[in-house]
């Protein structure tokens, strides 16, 4: 009898073990998304919600209709540091950076997945599609989107992001200081603003002072700016750099944004299934090929965001310049630079362009509309905070009045740039930006066209094969695409 009982227990334990193990994994995808440190985050969340039920009712009066957990989806640490810097309600953040506690006991759960390979969007899409059925504390409340794919989420038919007016933000008055083009980008096809950003991203040219001195005997941004005024002058400059054994840029992908973000018509017209490749993109290919063959790029670097590309930012590298907006200096160059502070400087890029921009979107169905509104307002609509962010992180923030003053104000000088105040160059770049028209296919197009033509630029295949490869790859990524038109 005992044996029987034992075997029943064992069998059922085995069974429930198998099923429960898989079941919990499937039913709660949101917390599991938390990357490497998911466990701790989920555990504390579970423990806290269990422990807090008693105090829950007490605090409920103060925070009517507010959930206990704010889930913020993002693709890197940038958003967390910015929000932590400006949102006064945040009391402390756990050491691993996954959970922040607010002064009213609400927790922010930072769910960070890398942009690489579309991981972030996969996880976010999954969570948004389950939004309606998810438990309140598992619902996405706030998420970040980059300009490359924001259209996907601001689409009025999809309704994944709430119109800001539904949150109680009036874009015309509350966000009046924002740059007009960022508001256009953040609006759906009916002109309803559904997102908001704290940054505008005019691109500049960031160069190494020591290399400039070595080649021309000066590192003055004005002098160097003359040498990087346009692409024709740039070529002469590149030749001079090459004579001294330097590379102008690390690779062909660095220059892409100056072309790709100046296209005249969107990659895909709204409602169409045809990709129209802009002439500017083809210009990028032909120019890059010419530069590549001339030896102006570092041949060991292929594309961005890889180890070689980061190494090319270090003091041992021979790369003269990078094309970056403000965020690039803060999030990419500073962590990868190993030499003395003040070794870089900013000047005008050969062509003005806007690269990127992280937008905040309130997820439809959020259970914390109050906090979400406060966070969006604190980070993107508060002049004081935007001034602070600009000073602390050398960001070009989305407040016209602040930025107009910044160029002349020494307080905005950057130590990393050797005390230079870069805001004049940012503002110049911004004033001549013609924002490229967006489509929801931008990310795939930008990524895959660079990838397909890398083989061509590296001399592996001919131009037509590269075109064919792009067509195959883009149709795989977006099955609804029926045709690709080349200029």
């Amino acid at each position: 009898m005992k044996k029987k009982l034992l075997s029943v227990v064992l069998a059922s334990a085995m069974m429930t073990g198998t099923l429960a193990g898989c079941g919990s994994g499937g039913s709660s995808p949101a917390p599991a998304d938390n990357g490497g440190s998911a466990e701790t985050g989920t555990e504390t969340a579970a423990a806290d919600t269990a422990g807090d039920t008693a105090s829950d009712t007490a605090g409920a009066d103060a925070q009517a209709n507010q959930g206990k957990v704010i889930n913020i989806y993002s693709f890197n640490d940038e958003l967390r540091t910015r929000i932590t810097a400006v949102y006064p309600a945040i009391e402390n953040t756990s050491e691993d950076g996954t959970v922040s506690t607010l002064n009213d006991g609400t927790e922010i759960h930072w769910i960070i997945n890398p942009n690489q390979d579309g991981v972030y969007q996969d996880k976010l899409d999954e969570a948004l599609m389950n939004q309606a059925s998810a438990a309140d504390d598992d619902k996405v409340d706030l998420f970040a989107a980059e300009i490359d794919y924001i259209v996907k989420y601001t689409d009025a038919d999809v309704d994944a992001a709430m119109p800001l007016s539904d949150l109680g933000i009036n874009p015309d008055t509350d966000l009046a200081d924002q740059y007009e083009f960022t508001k256009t980008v953040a609006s759906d096809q009916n002109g309803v603003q559904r997102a908001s950003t704290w940054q505008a991203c005019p691109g500049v040219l960031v160069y190494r002072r020591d290399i400039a001195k070595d080649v021309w005997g000066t590192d003055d941004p004005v002098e160097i700016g003359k040498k990087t005024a346009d692409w024709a002058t740039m070529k002469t400059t590149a030749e001079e750099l090459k004579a001294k054994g330097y590379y102008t840029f690390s690779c062909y992908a660095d220059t892409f944004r100056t072309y790709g973000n100046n296209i005249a018509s969107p990659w895909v017209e709204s409602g169409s299934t045809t990709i129209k490749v802009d002439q500017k993109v083809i210009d990028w290919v032909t120019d890059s090929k010419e530069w590549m063959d001339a030896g102006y790029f570092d041949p060991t670097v292929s594309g961005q965001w890889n180890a070689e590309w980061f190494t090319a930012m270090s003091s041992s590298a021979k790369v003269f310049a990078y094309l970056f907006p403000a965020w690039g200096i803060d999030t990419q160059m500073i962590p990868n630079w190993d030499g003395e502070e003040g070794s870089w400087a900013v000047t005008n890029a050969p062509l003005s362009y806007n690269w990127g921009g992280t937008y905040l979107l309130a997820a439809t169905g959020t259970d914390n509309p109050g906090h979400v509104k406060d966070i969006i307002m604190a980070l993107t609509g508060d002049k004081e905070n935007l001034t602070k962010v600009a000073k602390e992180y050398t960001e070009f923030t989305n407040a016209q009045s602040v930025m107009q003053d910044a160029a002349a104000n020494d307080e905005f000088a950057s130590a990393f740039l050797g005390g230079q105040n870069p805001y004049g160059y940012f503002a110049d770049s911004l004033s001549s930006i013609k924002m490229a028209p967006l489509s929801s296919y931008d990310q795939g197009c930008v990524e895959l066209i660079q990838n397909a033509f890398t083989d061509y630029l590296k001399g592996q295949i001919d131009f037509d094969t590269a075109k064919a490869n792009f067509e195959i790859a883009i149709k795989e990524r977006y099955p609804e695409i029926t045709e690709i038109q080349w200029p």
Partner: protein
Amino acid sequence: MFVQKKRKLVSYAKWGYIFILPFFASFLIFSLIPLVDTIRYSFYEYFRSGIKEIGPNFIGMQNYASLIQSDMLKYAGNTLILWLIGFIPQIVIALTLASWFVDVRMKIRCQQFFKVVIYLPNLIMASAFAMLFFTLFSTKGPVNSILMSLGVIGEAIDFMRTALGVRSLVGIMNFLMWFGNTTIMLMAAIMGISPDIFEASEIDGCNSMQRFFRITLPLIRPILAYTLITSIIGGLQMFDVPQILTNGQGNPDRTSMTLIMFLNSHLRSKNYGMAGALSVYLFIVSGILCFIVYRITNDDDPDGSKAAARKNKRGRR
């Protein structure tokens, strides 16, 4: 007394079923239902555009037809080439090592140690192994630095940008990971051969080459065939190593894109219809291969004696 005994037997059988129930229940839920769903969706147009879901709309065999028209066969070819580059050295080295290890006259010392060492690479996760190679062979990686400082090459070789480079790296990795496993399997096969045969051959004046080709090889043929087929099936599913080495792009010029990577790129857009159709193709190919394995391992005439007898009979008639 008799009756009681009988009832006890029946109840034992019941426990048997209860014990295998967990497997069948989980198989049903986690394998069979998804399998059937995959096949069902392969007849549908079903994908995601942004976060809008398109379909499922029934479109018959259209997914299958467009796959045939696509570059699927090219990727099948890639898969085959990548597999061959790894498999040929793998089987040659494994055979040599296996026959050395079991050869009583070679008296290899520390056999146990070597067996562990050659098996070790298999314990590393394929993706970690691929990451390691990716770093080792990158343009600024240690391999290039060493070669350059030795003066073997003038400038860094971009291994990841030539078809030859990527394919050989994938081949080397697969070889390193699997030759230990094959060696141990073949050793078991060779040890299964009766020592009498080897002794008899030696008395007859057989040299080691003859012994290997005339005795060992023919007698381990069934295991060899088994190794071959399982390796083909494994090769068909190859993706982790090239996926990580080429960032999922199958660079350069899609020459290292395997079938499963092709499948993955459809899953990027959650294109369940197309991915389902591709899976069905793979399922059919694997099914045929499995059938061959089944026939070989269940061979009722392993040493050919029955066939010889039949032939003899016919000849006599």
